[in-house]
């Protein structure tokens, strides 16, 4: 038996259209998605009508502050919504619902975007659907790659989780015990004053390609959990030595005696962090006896991570890795529209009184009513 996704379909209408608003971190995203009636399948896929994003970029050496990020979102949200509607060629009255990120994320930016969502809902008399950001990533990743029931590695600026579906929940098998992988990369980029444009992680990835020497770093995996703060402290002190004017002891490669470069540090940091991520993913695969991996979240666009994951699954029978490009793995509005619409189709509507956003909203709190496998 499969779930009936059309219990709430409007008579005479053969499709649904939803608008999604995302602003839980420094990206503001607006997406418009269309589902035709019936189960989503290879021949009945969700249709992306618009997917627009604007990123708040902070100066090198600085992270994005909640207040400034919220201001950015407020300044841009109306323009982005108008643009999305015109790209999609739809009017507010064509929509079925307004979906918004309810959490997790940074408080002020979340709150600035939900105000836009509430306003639209009242303007056009449409129901609101609050969406868990992580579930948005997972559902969009599944839809784009059409992977059935993968183990999900969710890696972004604020999250690091290994997730598998079971009994209508996305259950967290492993996660970081301290900081998120994206946060670790961003903070290291700040130490090295690597630019935040287009993204610190992207710039580290490019520098890492030029790295030659591996500098040993702590490697901390606990069961399916991992810890990254020790690595960050270690590599930040290496970087500090590198830039100290006093000509203190600078790190050299053990074999060649060559000086360690910033590129070597980027390389070593990525190799270490990603090895741990691939290892905990493999642990989860073994544990749930699966062989599919889906990588979602901003760090998921890193090609080295994708490559390493590919090498791992190659040694598991019928293994495969699914990932999406930056349009879908970096925070975006379309994933919120898509996951929200799945909820809407099951009757999951968020009354105005309950649209308060929350910074902490765990992936496994969401009732995944639209799946029953």
């Amino acid at each position, binding site marked *: 038996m499969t779930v009936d996704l059309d219990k709430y379909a409007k008579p005479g209408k053969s499709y649904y259209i939803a608008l999604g608003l995302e602003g839980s971190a420094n990206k503001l995203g607006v997406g418009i998605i269309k589902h035709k009636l019936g189960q989503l399948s290879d021949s009945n896929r969700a249709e992306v009508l618009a997917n627009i994003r604007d990123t708040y970029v902070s100066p090198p050496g600085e992270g994005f502050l909640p207040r400034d990020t919220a201001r950015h979102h407020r300044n841009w949200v109306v323009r982005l919504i108008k643009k999305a509607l015109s790209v999609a060629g739809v009017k507010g009255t064509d929509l079925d619902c307004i979906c918004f990120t309810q959490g997790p994320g940074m408080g002020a930016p979340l709150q600035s975007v939900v105000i836009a969502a509430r306003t639209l809902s009242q303007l056009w008399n449409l129901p609101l659907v609050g969406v868990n950001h992580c579930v948005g990533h997972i559902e969009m990743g599944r839809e784009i790659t059409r992977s059935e029931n993968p183990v999900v590695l969710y890696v*972004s600026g604020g999250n690091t989780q290994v997730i598998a579906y079971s009994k209508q929940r996305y259950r967290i098998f492993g996660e970081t015990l301290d900081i998120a992988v994206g946060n670790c990369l961003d903070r290291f980029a700040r130490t090295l004053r690597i630019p935040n444009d287009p993204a610190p992680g992207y710039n580290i990835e490019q520098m890492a390609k030029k790295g030659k020497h591996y500098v040993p770093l702590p490697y901390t995996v606990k069961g399916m959990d991992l810890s990254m703060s020790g690595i960050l402290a270690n590599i930040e002190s290496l970087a500090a030595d590198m830039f100290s004017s006093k000509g203190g002891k600078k790190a050299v490669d053990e074999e060649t005696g060559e000086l360690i470069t910033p590129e070597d540090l980027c390389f070593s940091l990525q190799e270490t962090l990603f090895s741990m991520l691939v290892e905990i993913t493999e642990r989860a695969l073994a544990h749930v006896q699966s062989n599919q991996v889906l990588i979602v979240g901003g760090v998921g666009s890193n090609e080295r991570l994708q490559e390493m994951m590919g090498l791992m699954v190659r*040694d598991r029978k019928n293994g495969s890795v699914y990932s999406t490009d930056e349009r879908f793995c970096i925070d975006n509005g379309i994933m919120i529209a898509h996951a929200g619409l799945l909820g809407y189709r099951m009757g999951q509507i968020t009354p105005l009184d309950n649209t308060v956003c929350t910074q902490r909203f765990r992936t496994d709190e969401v009732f995944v009513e639209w799946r029953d496998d």
Partner: protein
Amino acid sequence: MTDRLVDEAKLLLRNVSFQIVSQGAEALVFKTNIHPYFNDDQDESSYIIKYRPRKPYRHPKIDKSITKSRTIGEVKFMFKLAKAGIRAPRVVSTDYFNGIIWMEHIGYSLPDGKESTLKNWLWYLEKVRGESLSEEVQRICVEVGYLIGDLHLNDMIHGDLTSSNIMLDKKGPALIDFGLSSYSALPEDKAVDLYVLERAMNSTHADYASEYNSWLLKGYEKAHSDGHYSKQANKSFVEIIKRLEDVRLRGRKRSMIG
């Protein structure tokens, strides 16, 4: 598991015939009737060969150091467990360089043909027989908790407690898989060990996890109050549980941005 891995193993284990038991998280596990150095036709025991293959995804330097430290760490831990009288397979022989450990085979085959890990046994009961909350399950969970209590009272940390790393044997439960093990007397480390298990139970046995977890903790407490250990044991139990609550809260409160 793929042929490449099996071929690699065959090359390292020349003249040893083996059956594949599992491709676990990081190791390949084989079963054999051949003893690595005795040549005894009367010997009918079976042995487990645990092989940590090269992981092509990671940098060779990371790979070498992990394989070596985990293999050595696991063997030393098993040796200490044997000395402390905590149930676990005995080591038969090792090859650190190639990441191979031979050990005693424990457990039996479940009616569905799977190895008797706690996970497989509970799954079998959950799926096939629908009698997950029987007294027998409770008794076994309490025994497992007791075993983990014993482990911690020896200041030994498993590091990867899941229901697949606990074997059920005719003589009672036993621990396996010590690649992530360590030694510590800190309540924090013991609490994290318990937290890892609790989370593994929640995700693998979602429907019954709260009962299983409470029985496990009951056994864990029992080990601390049984009087085999110093009077401090009771006090340290209280401290560990307090820590466990902190660790849980930390998990839920961790800010999750982006």
